[in-house]
C-alpha cells in the first residue's frame, strides 16, 4: 500500500537512520542546550521565591526580586524556556525518525529556536522589570510575545514539512498527537495574546480566556507532546509494539475534546454555565487517562525486556505515573464536593507541578538522554550522573508535590471553616519547608543534567573541530613547505 500511494512529489526518499539523526543535530542541540539553561534559571528563581516563605524580609529592597515577579519569571523560564522548547525538539526528532525523513531546513529551525530563546530572555527580563501583563502563563510583555509567536511558527511549519516529507507514509499515534500540538500552540497563544493584550476584551471575559489558555497549554499541549513521546519511546525501549492503536486514537480524541474545556474554577464570578461545563469536561478527562493507563499497562504487562541503557526508560515510566496521578488529582479537584476545599489552595499548585514537572519534564529528560547521543554520535560523558539526575528529580518532585497536596487540603479545610485566616497560612508552613527541600533536590538534578550536556557538547566540539583543525593546519603546513 505504501509503494502505491507514494508519489515522487509527496514522498521524500527514505534516509538512513544516521542521516536522519545527523540532519537534526544543529536544531536539536540548540533547543536542548537552551532548554537546560532555562531549567537552571527557573530553578534559581524558584528557589528565591521559595525562600521568601521562610525569610519574608529577604531582598525586600530590590523591586525585581519581589515574590510576585520572581515567581512569574521562574514559571516563564520553566514553561517557555524549558518545557515547550524541549517539547518542540523531541517532537521534531520523533517526526523525523518515525517518518524516516531528514529534518527539513535544519538551519532555519535552529534560527527559529534562537529567536524563541531571545523571546524567552526578553520575557523574563521584562517580567523582572515590572512589565508583566498580569495574566498567568502570559506574563511576558508584548515585545517578547511577538518573537515567541514567530519562532513557534517557524519551528512548527518546518516540523510539519518534515512530517509531510516522510517516506514511511502510515501515521503513528505519536504523529497524530504532534500534529495537533504543533498547530494548537500558535492558535491558543495568538488568540490569548490578541484578546488579552493587543485589543483586550472587557471585564471577566479576560479571566475566562486566560484560564482557557492556561488549561490548553498545561493540560492539552503538554499532554499531547508528552504522550506522543511516551507512545513513541515505550514500545521502542521495550522492543515491542504498542498494545493498541485504536485505544491510542481514542485517548487522543477524548483528550483534545475534554481537556480543552477544562480550567475554569468553580468559584469564578461568571455566569454559572461556564464553571459548570468546565467542571464536567474536567471530570470526563478521566476517560483519556484510563485509555492511556490501559494501553501502557497492556504494553508493559507482557514482561519488560529492556536491553539498552535503562535511564531514559525510567524517566519515561515515572512520567506516565505522574501523568496518571496528576490528572486524577485534577479530576477529583473538579468534583462539586471537593472543589470548594481545594480551590485557592496549594493543592492546585501540587497538581500543576506534578503535571508539568513530574509528567512532562521527566518524559522530556528521558527522551533527551536517549536522543542526544544518537544525534551527535557521542555518548554521555557521565552515565552515572544521569542516574543520579533521575533519583534527584524523582525524589525532588515527590517532595514538592506530596507536602503541597496534603498541606493544601488542610489549608482548604481551614479556609472553609470560619477559622481565622492566619491559621490557614500557619498550617501551610511546615509543608512549604518540605517542598523547598524538594526544590533543592530538583535544582541539583538540573545542575547535573546541564553539566552532562555541556560535557557532551565539549566532546562533540573536540570530535568535530580537532580533525578539521588538524586537516586545516596540515594543509597550511604543506602549503608552507611548497612556498
Amino acid at each position, binding site marked *: *500500500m505504501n509503494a502505491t500511494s507514494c508519489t515522487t512529489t509527496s514522498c521524500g526518499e527514505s534516509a538512513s537512520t544516521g542521516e536522519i539523526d545527523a540532519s537534526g543535530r544543529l536544531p536539536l542541540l540548540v533547543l536542548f542546550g537552551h532548554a537546560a539553561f532555562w531549567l537552571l534559571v527557573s530553578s534559581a528563581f524558584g528557589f528565591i521565591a521559595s525562600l521568601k*516563605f521562610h525569610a*519574608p*524580609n529577604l531582598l*525586600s529592597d530590590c*523591586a525585581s526580586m*519581589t*515574590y*510576585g*515577579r520572581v*515567581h512569574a519569571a521562574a514559571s516563564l523560564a520553566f514553561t517557555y524556556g524549558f518545557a515547550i522548547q524541549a517539547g518542540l525538539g523531541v517532537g521534531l526528532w520523533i517526526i523525523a525518525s518515525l517518518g524516516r525523513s531528514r529534518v527539513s531546513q535544519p538551519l532555519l529551525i535552529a534560527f527559529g529556536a534562537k529567536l524563541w530563546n531571545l523571546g524567552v530572555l526578553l520575557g523574563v527580563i521584562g517580567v523582572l522589570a*515590572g*512589565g*508583566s*501583563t*498580569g*495574566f*498567568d502563563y502570559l506574563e511576558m510583555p508584548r515585545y517578547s510575545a511577538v518573537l515567541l509567536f514567530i519562532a513557534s511558527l517557524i519551528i512548527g511549519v518546518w516540523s510539519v514539512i518534515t512530517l509531510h516529507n516522510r517516506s514511511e*507514509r*502510515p*501515521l503513528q499515534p505519536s504523529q*497524530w498527537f504532534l500534529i*495537533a500540538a504543533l*498547530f*494548537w500552540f500558535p*492558535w491558543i497563544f495568538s488568540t490569548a495574546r490578541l*484578546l488579552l493584550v493587543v485589543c*483586550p*476584551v472587557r*471585564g*471577566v*471575559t*479576560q479571566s*475566562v*480566556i486566560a484560564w*482557557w489558555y492556561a488549561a*490548553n497549554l498545561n493540560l*492539552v499541549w503538554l499532554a499531547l507532546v508528552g504522550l506522543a513521546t511516551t507512545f513513541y519511546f515505550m514500545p521502542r525501549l521495550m522492543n515491542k509494539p504498542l498494545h493498541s*492503536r485504536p485505544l491510542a486514537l481514542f485517548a487522543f*480524541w477524548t483528550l*483534545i*475534546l475534554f481537556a*480543552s*474545556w477544562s480550567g*475554569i*474554577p468553580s468559584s469564578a*464570578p*461568571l*455566569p454559572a454555565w461556564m464553571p459548570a*461545563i468546565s467542571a464536567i469536561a474536567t471530570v470526563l478527562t478521566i476517560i483519556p487517562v484510563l485509555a492511556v493507563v490501559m494501553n501502557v499497562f497492556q504494553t508493559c504487562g507482557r514482561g519488560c525486556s529492556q536491553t539498552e541503557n535503562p535511564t531514559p526508560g525510567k524517566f519515561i515510566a515515572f512520567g506516565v505515573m505522574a501523568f496518571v496521578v496528576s490528572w486524577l488529582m485534577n479530576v477529583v479537584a473538579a468534583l462539586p464536593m471537593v472543589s470548594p476545599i481545594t480551590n*485557592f*489552595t*496549594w493543592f*492546585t*499548585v501540587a497538581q500543576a507541578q506534578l503535571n508539568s514537572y513530574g509528567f512532562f519534564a521527566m518524559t522530556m529528560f528521558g527522551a533527551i538522554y536517549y536522543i542526544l547521543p544518537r544525534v551527535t554520535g557521542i555518548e554521555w560523558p557521565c552515565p552515572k550522573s544521569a542516574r543520579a539526575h533521575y533519583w534527584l528529580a524523582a525524589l525532588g518532585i515527590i517532595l514538592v508535590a506530596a507536602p503541597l497536596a496534603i498541606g493544601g487540603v488542610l489549608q482548604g479545610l481551614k479556609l472553609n471553616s*470560619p477559622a481565622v485566616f*492566619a491559621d490557614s*497560612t*500557619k498550617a501551610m*508552613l511546615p509543608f512549604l519547608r518540605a517542598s523547598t527541600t524538594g526544590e533543592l533536590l530538583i535544582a541539583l538534578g538540573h545542575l547535573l543534567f546541564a553539566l552532562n550536556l555541556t560535557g557532551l557538547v565539549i566532546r562533540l566540539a573536540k570530535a568535530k573541530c580537532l580533525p578539521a583543525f588538524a586537516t586545516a593546519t596540515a594543509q597550511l603546513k604543506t602549503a608552507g613547505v611548497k612556498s
Partner: protein
Amino acid sequence: MNYGPFVFLAAFFALSASWFGLVLTPQIQIGRSQQATNIVNTAEMYPQARPGLAHQGQEVYRANNCAACHSQQVGQTGIVVDVVLTEAGTNFNALAEVLKKVDATATAAGLAGGLPKTVVKGVTMDTAEELAKAIKTAGAKAETHLVSTGPDMARGWGARRTVAQDFLYDYPVMLGARRVGPDLANVGTRLPDANWHLTHLYAPRAAVSGSAMPSYRFLFETRKISGAPSPAALQLAKEFAPADGFEIVPKPEARQLVAYLLSLHADTPLYEAPMSAPVAPKPTASAK
C-alpha cells in the same frame, strides 16, 4: 492509516469547539456588558471607574504580581434573612404576642427601648415576610435584611459574592488563584486606613504579627531628616524604625498601590447579588 489531513481536520474541529465555547461565547454573553443601573433601590450606575490614583495603583499591583498570593473574589453559600424591628408602634401587647412566636422571652415592657432591634436571625425569606407582615398588622414597623452566608462572609471578607459586573472596568482583571494571603475583594471596606496599609507594606509584621507577607521596602524611600521631619513619614515601632536621624517616606508607587487597595469594595447591592447588610462608609480614594 494515511489520513494526515483527516487527523488534522478532526483535531481542528475538536479543539476549535473549546475556542467557540470558552472564547467566543463568553465574549458574546458578557464581553459587551455596560455600566448599568442594576443597584437595588437606586438609579446610580454601577460600576464606576476607579479614580486616577487608584488606577495607577492597579498598574503597581499588576507589575508586582500581587495576584500570585491574593485573590479578589469571594463566594457565598447561601442567603438568609434577619428581621429588624424599627418602630414599636403603640400596641405593645399585640406586638409582644407576635414576637412570642419567635422569641419566648419577648414581653410588652421590653419593647419600649433599644430600637432598631433584630428580632429574628437567619430565617428563610418566606418566614421573614410572614413575621414582618404580622408585625405590621400589630401596628409596628419591621425591615427584612438579606445576609449572605458562607466561610468568606463569616471571615468578614465581603457582604455578598463577587459577580462579573464588579470587574467591568478593570484591566487586567486579576482574580487570583491562590489564597496565600487574604482575599482583597473588599479590603477597602475592611481596612479603610491608608496609613495602616503603608505601614503594612513597609513592614508587614509591624501591622500584623506573624504575617507571612514579604515586605515591600522598595516602595519606600529612606531619607535623612534635614530640618523638620516629613509629615508623610511612617510612624513605626522601635524595632521596625530606621536608624536615628532617618525617616521612611512612601514613594508615589506606594501611595498609588494603597489608593488601589482602598478602592477595592465589591459591596454594592445588585439585583443579581442582593444584600442589605449596612454598607460601611466608603473611604476616599486618595491615600494622602
